[in-house]
């Protein structure tokens, strides 16, 4: 255990948001058994009142989680100085087996919470709150994820010891063993960029289709997640090389550092937003449109699809700009 202020802060954040989600899902269980909007009984009125608390607590937890995701990566980067062989966040995350799982759990929770938020916004437009059961069912499913996230985060911090020998981005992304990371990095940069631009074409086509046809929306959700993966692969195998102007520096985290003028934020923010919006629109597209949302829901989903495509476009634009202004020329 290394007791640093950011570690204390992240532990607190994990506990608070997991606590909020667990409490909310305990309420969700109660709600699913008794929800009947038509009733004027006091118990129903009390349930309804409590949904306001859940809505505000979950928004709070989500804001905390997004901030914590950023702080987590930053802190890992800062801590890297304490581990032999670590030069950036990758090394610090590798210093414990729980490092990367904790990061992935945070990202998964981000997508889950985005979906919940989207469902909440859509639901509030229907006069009979038609998605309430669906939404609270999802909440119950998210609680274990939140617990896992908090558990992994705390386990990671408890497991850290100064002076651990670890391997950094240089190793991770050029390992002889075929790991996902090294596969991603090993990808030919030109091929990765080809996939990125090709994938973006598919995204645009999918968005155009999903804007018009409700049935194409779940498909667009899948396309969004796939593009998210392709984009991350392109960052690791090609875009990072251009940003660092170094033919072997494959690291998705160093981008976030001040040395590269926090370029990573510009790159990742639209990508994460695009993926979260697209995936949520896709998941909500699976729900049959309730009568009370006949107008509102398709309109919101359409807007989410458009915003998602705009987010992806922002990512592609920023990446292209980084490549264009880079001094590095990859001859392959």
């Amino acid at each position, binding site marked *: 255990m290394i*007791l640093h*202020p950011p570690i204390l802060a992240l532990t607190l954040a994990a506990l608070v948001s997991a606590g909020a989600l667990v409490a909310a899902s305990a309420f969700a269980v109660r709600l699913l058994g008794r929800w009947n909007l038509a009733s004027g009984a006091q118990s129903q009125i009390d349930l309804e009142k409590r949904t306001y608390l859940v809505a505000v607590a979950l928004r709070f937890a989500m804001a905390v989680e997004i901030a914590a995701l*950023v702080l987590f990566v930053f802190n890992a980067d800062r801590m890297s*100085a304490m581990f032999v062989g670590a030069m950036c966040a990758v090394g610090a995350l590798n210093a414990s087996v729980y490092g990367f799982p904790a990061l992935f759990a945070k990202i998964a929770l981000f997508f889950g919470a985005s979906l919940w938020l989207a469902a909440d916004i859509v639901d509030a437009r229907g006069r009979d709150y038609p998605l309430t059961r669906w939404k609270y069912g999802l909440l119950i499913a998210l609680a274990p994820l939140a617990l896992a996230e908090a558990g992994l985060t705390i386990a990671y911090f408890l497991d850290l010891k100064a002076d651990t020998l670890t391997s950094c981005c240089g190793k991770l992304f050029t390992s002889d063993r075929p790991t996902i990371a090294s596969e991603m990095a090993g990808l030919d940069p030109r091929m990765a960029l080809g996939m990125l631009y090709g994938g973006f074409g598919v995204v645009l086509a999918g968005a155009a289709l999903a804007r018009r046809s409700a049935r194409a929306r779940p498909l667009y959700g899948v396309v969004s997640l796939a593009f998210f993966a392709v984009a991350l692969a392109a960052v690791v195998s090609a875009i990072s090389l251009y940003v660092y102007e170094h033919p072997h520096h494959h690291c998705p985290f160093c981008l976030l550092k001040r040395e590269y003028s926090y370029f990573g934020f510009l790159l990742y923010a639209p990508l994460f937003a695009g993926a979260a919006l697209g995936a949520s629109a896709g998941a909500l597209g699976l729900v049959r449109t309730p009568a009370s949302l006949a107008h509102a829901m398709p309109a919101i989903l359409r807007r989410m699809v458009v915003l998602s495509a705009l987010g992806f476009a922002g990512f592609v634009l920023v990446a292209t700009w980084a490549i264009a202004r880079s001094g590095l020329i990859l001859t392959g």
Partner: protein
Amino acid sequence: MSGWWARQRYLLDYASASLWRRKGRNLVLWAIFAALVFILGSVILFGSAIRREAALVLRDAPDVVAQAMRMGRHDMALASDIAKLKSVRGADRIEGRLWGYLYDTSTDANYTLQTPSAHAPDLALQKGEAIVGEGVARLRKLSEGKHLFLVSPAGRLLKAKVKKVLSPESALVSSDLVLVSAEDFRAFFELAPDQFTDIAMRVRNPSEVGTVSGKGALALPHYRFITRANMARTYEALFSWREGLLLAIATGAILAFAILAFDKASGLSAQERREIGILKAIGWETSDIIRMKLWEAGLISVSAFVAGMTLAYLHVFAMSAPLIETVLKGWSTLYPRFALTPHVDALQVTTLAFLTLLPYIAAVLAPIWRTASADPDRVMR
């Protein structure tokens, strides 16, 4: 979107007016919050400034330093011992270092006298030349081309022409530094030509540092081998538990504050409850009230945060943290002359925000909701 923002502006407007109407009560909470941020902020800013200082010292430190020991005390290293170390495999760039402290009575300050490393060609010096740190230049009113005069404790005089003043950005490590040629150094401190202060080694493969210093210790049993990792650990150990102690106390303070905030937010006056009821009866909705109350909480906490943070900054960097100095005094043995360079980064500010704003908002959320969900028909009674 613009409609959303217009609505928030009205709610914000009401929230600020409402805070102002109860300024006496809110001021207490505000002041406690600001004080909490101030204390925590001081610890965090101070801690990371120290760590930064240590990191800068360590960055330029050699991988392994060998110190001769005699009767348990640091002794001079000998050139013949350096030769013995050269046979150790894995170590390269082995060199004897010359450095020492000088108390200068004329300016009442401690200088670090040192010779430049053979591997830093830009700092290479001829006899009669010197490079001085920014602090020394300031105290002695020196600039390039002027002459520096130093008197040793034994009364020897050193006269050297200033070749360069080190740039202020590295002031942290080099402010009190005076670099002179080896010849001048030995003459000034009356050292024999085969004597060195200690021996520095570089190890190419970081995972072999331990093995190399182990082999070195076999070759020179009367030497103490200190790796950079050792130094880092010493810094870390010395600081971590002090900081940990302060943070543990701070955690208690945060908890106490959260309870206070919870209590304040729950214990609304009858007047305030009535107001909420009126607002709901005349057309506000539960979520409008929640948002308005969140604006209130946001205004209080963010302004207190900024105030506390600013005070902490001044406390640590303008006044060298007199209030927490006693607890952290251990550091003064490492840094007899410490002057922290102002440095704040996003990580510290975010951390502080997590430690103070997050518990506050979390604590008031449920009371705010409870207030907001009061039945509007109450006001009719």
